[in-house]
């Protein structure tokens, strides 16, 4: 009972934090809310996982939880990887744009300097 209370409170807190602090699309928010609610229900009625597991052909409820978690983590990982790649492309565009916009050295600068030096610096062209 103690575990259920503690885990339940943590889960509820995490859900609130997610929905309030993390800005995301409505669909994502609904999905997250559903996920947390499902977690709460499973906490309160542990036998439910075993029933569900039997229904889909897996022996124990704990196994079902493990499988679902694995799939979930994999999908999350891929989603984050793709997002990371997209951000990397955008970052490249910005950094490249800045580099092209303002060269730190142009060839003319050296030629001008050389011309100035070879003219003796006396001011005569």
């Amino acid at each position, binding site marked *: 009972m103690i575990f259920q209370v503690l885990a339940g409170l943590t889960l509820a807190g995490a859900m609130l934090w997610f929905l309030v602090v993390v800005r995301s699309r409505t669909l994502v928010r609904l999905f997250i809310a559903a996920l947390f609610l499902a977690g709460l229900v499973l906490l309160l009625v542990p036998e439910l996982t075993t029933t569900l597991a039997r229904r889909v052909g897996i022996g124990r409820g704990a196994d079902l939880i493990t499988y679902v978690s694995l799939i979930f983590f994999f999908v999350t990982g891929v989603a984050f990887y793709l997002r990371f790649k997209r951000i990397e492309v955008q970052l490249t565009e910005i950094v490249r744009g800045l*580099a092209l916009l303002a060269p730190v*050295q142009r*060839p003319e600068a050296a030629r001008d300097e050389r011309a100035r030096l070879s003219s003796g610096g006396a001011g005569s062209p």
Partner: protein
Amino acid sequence: MADTPPSASAPTEAAARPPERATRALADTWVVVPAYNEAGVIRGVVHELLESGVRHVVVVDDCSSDPTATALRGLPCTVLRHRINLGQGAALQTGIEHAVREGARYLVTFDGDGQHDPRDVARFVAALETGDVDVVLGSRFLGRAEGMDRQRALLLRAALLFTRLTVSGLRLTDVHNGLRAFRAEVAPRLALTQNRMAHASEFLARLRASRLRYRELPNSVRYTSYSKAKGQSALGAIDIVYELLVRRLLLR
């Protein structure tokens, strides 16, 4: 540094080329040099390039932590600087885009660590000038590589096999050679999106997809203790394999 005559690597090429034609082509050639922490050698590399008759050099400093950019002060070349380190592929692409905007006709990519011979540039561009090919690729195995050890040769052979099997399908003898030359108008079709080292294989994948005419020419490569230390370790090969596989699985 320069102790071998240019004709040593390809005597037939050098003899067949009228020199004044090559010089004219060089005037429209931009050499792109990606550089990351090359302060000790970059000035010599660019100086040698300019001495060899190249008019336009653009160095892309990929956010070096050493004074690579300032080492070039006073040399008539363009220096671009990435504010964040993005990798060699990204640096090359930045330099290529700059050169295209400046009206380049021919583009040459050239390593910043001094392993390439500036005298190869004219020969590569001359091959483009004949109009028979759009892309010229350097090969260490057609030419002579000074000081290459057995382990590196084996690693490069493995890289060759891997690239042939997975991405390129091109008939090449050397797939990770930084010396390449191509016409400016085909640059967009060869644009690199792989920021890090997988860009060498990406270039070949794009080359194959583009169906451009290509040719390998021997180039001499100087393996000094400096360039060896700067070059990729065998572990880098694993990274390249990973990048390419992930890319093929997820993004294509």
